[in-house]
């Protein structure tokens, strides 16, 4: 009788036990996986979400970019050129402005990506064959978004007036397009990505910090003791959020500082404004993370929720892909994400020198998101162990 005989039948291969034990482990893992609803949801949701977002929402050749026009004269030729521009489907004329200052404000706040100026006497000059200039300014803080649209302009100049009569044949193209890439004339992608990274890194770290905070207390058993002491849910929330505001602020300073020193990111706007709005953004993300913490059953679930929230933030905020190029529904989702608004804020302040007046809309949305998250967190927080 062999020593191993007790476990393995006589004559059977000694690996019998190997498969039996592996099988036991496998069965146990499946049972646990089935009980873990959130993990299960992640298995389904993450690929679906990626598929839909990459498949439908993301467009690296963005079209229908919001454009403002400044008309110094009203002429058929001008109208024909604007129609031709719209026909390229790169430009969508959303605003008609009367002054350059008005146009500058739209551009600084990010409401339009392009501005087209038809100068006074354009038609007359055209008919004389003087090749007048049409001025187009593009927001190049996102070189990808601006690039292909600017590239399409040359063709517009050739064909826009093909059906207009009385334009001298010899001048071809009959007018000149003077395109100006604002804010980032060299179309450096670093100028776009580094400010974007500030927001992305802050989103990720802030979410995780607070997403773990309540579930950790529950898992370690300290929550029972905490709840038996005279402290209110709001006090617990604020006590958990405030330390990380300082952490987030240091992190933001580090990234922006490195961006300025290493990549030569300009700081055109007010640093105080940037600090103020960054603090708001940090607090918003901490509040959302804290809300996840009050909803999750354990730390793993909290991290999973944070990841599910992080993914659309990256893909739909305009960080990786141009915001203006996404279809309407994706832009609506994007508008509800804090990173979208912070990206506008940080790019506008650093690269465009925007002021609070330009950014009050994005700041208001961030504040709103923060208050909604805090309200959910405080009402969802369980004061008892029921």
């Amino acid at each position, binding site marked *: 009788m062999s020593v191993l005989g007790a476990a393995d039948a006589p004559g059977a291969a000694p690996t019998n036990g190997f498969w039996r034990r592996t099988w036991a482990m496998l069965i146990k893992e499946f049972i646990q996986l089935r009980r873990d609803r959130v993990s299960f949801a992640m298995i389904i949701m993450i690929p679906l979400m990626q598929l839909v977002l990459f498949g439908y929402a993301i467009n690296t050749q963005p079209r229908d970019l919001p454009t403002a026009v400044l008309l110094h004269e009203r002429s058929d030729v001008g109208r024909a050129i604007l129609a031709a521009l719209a026909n390229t489907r790169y430009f969508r004329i959303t605003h008609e402005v009367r002054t350059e200052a008005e146009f500058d404000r739209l551009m600084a706040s990010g409401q339009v990506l392009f501005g087209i100026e038809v100068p006074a006497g354009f038609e007359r000059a055209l008919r004389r064959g003087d090749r007048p200039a049409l001025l187009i300014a593009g927001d190049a803080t996102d070189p990808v978004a601006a690039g292909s649209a600017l590239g399409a302009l040359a063709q517009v100049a050739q064909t826009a007036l093909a059906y207009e009569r009385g334009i001298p044949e010899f001048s071809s193209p009959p007018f000149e397009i003077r395109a100006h890439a604002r804010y980032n004339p060299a179309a450096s992608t670093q100028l776009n990505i580094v400010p974007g990274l500030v927001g992305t890194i802050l989103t990720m770290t802030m979410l995780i910090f607070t997403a773990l905070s309540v579930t950790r207390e529950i898992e*370690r*058993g*300290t*929550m*029972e*003791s*905490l*709840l*038996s*002491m*005279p*402290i209110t849910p709001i006090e617990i929330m604020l006590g958990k959020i405030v330390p990380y505001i300082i952490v987030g602020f240091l992190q933001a300073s580090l990234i922006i500082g490195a961006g300025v020193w290493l990549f030569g990111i300009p700081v055109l706007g007010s640093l105080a404004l940037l600090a103020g709005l960054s603090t708001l953004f940090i607090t918003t993300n901490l509040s959302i993370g804290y809300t996840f913490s009050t909803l999750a059953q354990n730390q793993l679930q909290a991290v999973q929720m944070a990841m599910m929230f992080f993914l659309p933030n990256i893909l739909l905020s305009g960080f990786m892909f141009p915001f203006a190029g996404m279809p309407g529904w994706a832009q609506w989702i994007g508008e509800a994400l804090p990173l979208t608004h912070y990206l506008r804020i940080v790019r506008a302040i650093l690269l465009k020198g925007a002021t609070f007046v330009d950014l009050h809309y994005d700041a208001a949305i961030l504040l709103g998101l923060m208050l909604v998250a805090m309200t959910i967190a405080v009402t969802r927080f369980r*004061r*008892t*162990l*029921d």
Partner: protein
Amino acid sequence: MSAPDIAIDVRGLTKSFGGRVVVRDLSMQVRRGTIYGFLGPNGSGKTTTIRMLCGLLTPDKGEGTCLGYDIRTQAREIKRHVGYMTQRFSLYQDLSVRENLEFVARLYGMPDPPAAARAMIARLGLEGRERQLAGELSGGWKQRLALGACTLPNPQLLLLDEPTAGVDPKARREFWNEIHALAAEGLTVLVSTHYMDEAERCHEIAYIAYGELLAHGTVEGVIERSKLVTYTVTGDDLQRLAAELEHRPGVDMVAPFGGSLHVSGRDPQALEAAIAPYRDRPGLNWTRSGPSLEDVFIELMTRARDNF
């Protein structure tokens, strides 16, 4: 309105989780300044009752007061004046002894948290360990620290949930000395435990099984009211005797105690009749004795299960 010398006064507390009744129609009164032992097997509803008393759980039915505050509506006041020591160690393992105590002192708004923490460290005999992380303390020290943390804000009532589970006998004895010292200062202490010797250190006890309060009073009173008659048998082959006696009518309980066997019954005559055939068996020595508290509890539990 409860009398001022009553610390806990609850009636008809009922709580169920997911359709399973954990505490059923429980009423109890605890006088101020007493050490009240709360006994019962695992899962009998002790922890649930304690949590209802300190506002951590809302009873499904029933009402009452804790220190004169309504347990349903005045949880905040109760939390301010009640110290609750959880069954599982629930201080911050990654904070030091001193940091944990200072946290509690600050939370209760004590005037000088560092001084309060220092005083408690001295009282607990934890000098020299105040910088040690709470998670690194041994089981006995952890319990002392937890007791210190919940007595720090000068509560009027202590709720201790199995404070000595898994603690060595010496630490257990010191712990009980501390509890008696606190009670002598006027504190009311409700303490749950499995240990019979600890029950005998309480002024009054209550026994709970399957969510129902089965007996309460002083240890002597509980034993007396049980009406249990017990014979202690010593001799050879007690195991076989136990097996033979177990299901005989009149014998309500057979329990081995070291080298002896306790045979108990509620009806003395029926018990005598049941054991008569065995009394003359050679090698066995029968003596009639009072039941121990444990006999009483096991008998109560068996009866409760039969009625359940």
